[in-house]
């Protein structure tokens, strides 16, 4: 019984992976991972910490959508959290990357910084794309729930 319910509870939303936002999230993770590897090669620890934190946050959001947890944990309006987080991540990564690019001593740090800038561009795109889809106080009669298919 328990197995059955947990299997149902952890339903995987594979269509999200194929959607534009899902692809953007995966692209973010890939560029972050490349930046992480670059910083790891150059062993520049502050940048390494920044990218690993960003990587884990992006992974958490991806898992949230993938496992449809956003529909279970309804205390928060997840799309807005995603938007805010994307914009903050963009600002954070661009700051860290600019520091890395301007103060690099090893080529790995420079490469990581460039990848960090790519990540921040992707984050900006992700945040903007999702923000356009959010309406604040104009509920349509057809869909009053948090998410609805159009």
């Amino acid at each position, binding site marked *: 019984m328990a197995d059955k319910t947990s299997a149902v509870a952890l339903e995987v939303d594979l269509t999200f992976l194929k*959607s534009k936002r899902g692809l953007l999230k995966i692209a973010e993770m890939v560029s972050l991972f490349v930046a992480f590897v670059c910083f790891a090669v150059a062993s520049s620890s*502050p940048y390494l910490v*920044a990218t690993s*934190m960003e990587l884990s946050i992006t992974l958490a959001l991806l898992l949230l959508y993938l496992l449809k947890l956003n529909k279970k944990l309804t205390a928060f*309006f997840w799309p807005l959290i995603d938007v*805010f987080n994307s914009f903050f991540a963009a600002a954070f990564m661009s700051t860290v990357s600019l520091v890395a690019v301007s103060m690099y*001593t090893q080529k790995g740090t420079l490469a990581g910084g460039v990848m960090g800038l790519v990540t921040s561009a992707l984050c900006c795109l992700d945040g903007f794309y999702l923000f356009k889809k959010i309406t604040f*106080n104009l*509920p349509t009669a057809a869909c009053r729930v948090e*998410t609805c298919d159009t």
Partner: protein
Amino acid sequence: MGWLTWRGTEQSQDATIWSYTMCNWRHSLSFLILLLSSPALRMTKDLFPDIVDKAFIEECLREHNAGRSRVSPPASNMLYMTWDEGLAVTARAWARKCLFEHNIYLHEKGKVHPVFTTVGENIWAGAPYTMFSVKKAIEDWINENLHYDYDNHHCKEVCTHYTQVVWAETYKVGCAVQACPSGVAKTTFMSTPGAIFVCNYAPAGNYPHAPYLNGESCSRCGNEKCDNKLCHNITREEPRRYKWNPDWDPALPLFGSFYKTILIIRPLSLVFIFSCVYCLQRHYTNLFAYTA
């Protein structure tokens, strides 16, 4: 009056005890933080002298200059060597890596010294810790003169450490010693806790010619003072302060404010985002998104 005084004393006594415990508590807390964050660093501080240690500096200079003044055949243009803060800071930063290899930034301009453009380097490593003494390390380098033939400028075995120590035009040195609890990498005794001793020299030596000119001692010093077979010059020997640190120093990012800011800002931003969204949800009750 007497009563008042007594009261006063008691109060002040109370205050003293309180501040004492406060201090003690703070002290133990900072001790705990230090202990948690860097056990290796604490050990090093107890084991070996720092680069600002007067006795350590004196001994490094004494050994180097002794080696320089007793060269054979005698040198005519050998300069007296003095300490340089910048070189010592670089030596310390490289020693912290516990790696028995030359500094990879040695030929990059501005990476190893704020003023000097060419810097030389000697490295000594030994295990266990008791193997190390400044005298022994520098003597090991100077003893390479057995393999060096001045007349043909030829080394039978490794003798570049020796030629750097007795390089006539090199007049600044900075050394640092570091304890490596998990061993010095790239040595034959990698698994035993050991010490690494790094000395940086400026201007660099070991160009493809003899380290010094042979002749009567001090005969090529010009109008400089001669003392113990070495040329002295007050302006050249003056200690310089730089307020400089190499940006690749492994100890820097860990304790730098940049590192701390990164560690604090990102988790804090998540808290901020969640509370912001929570407030917005309360305000806009009809929030929704078209997520297809």
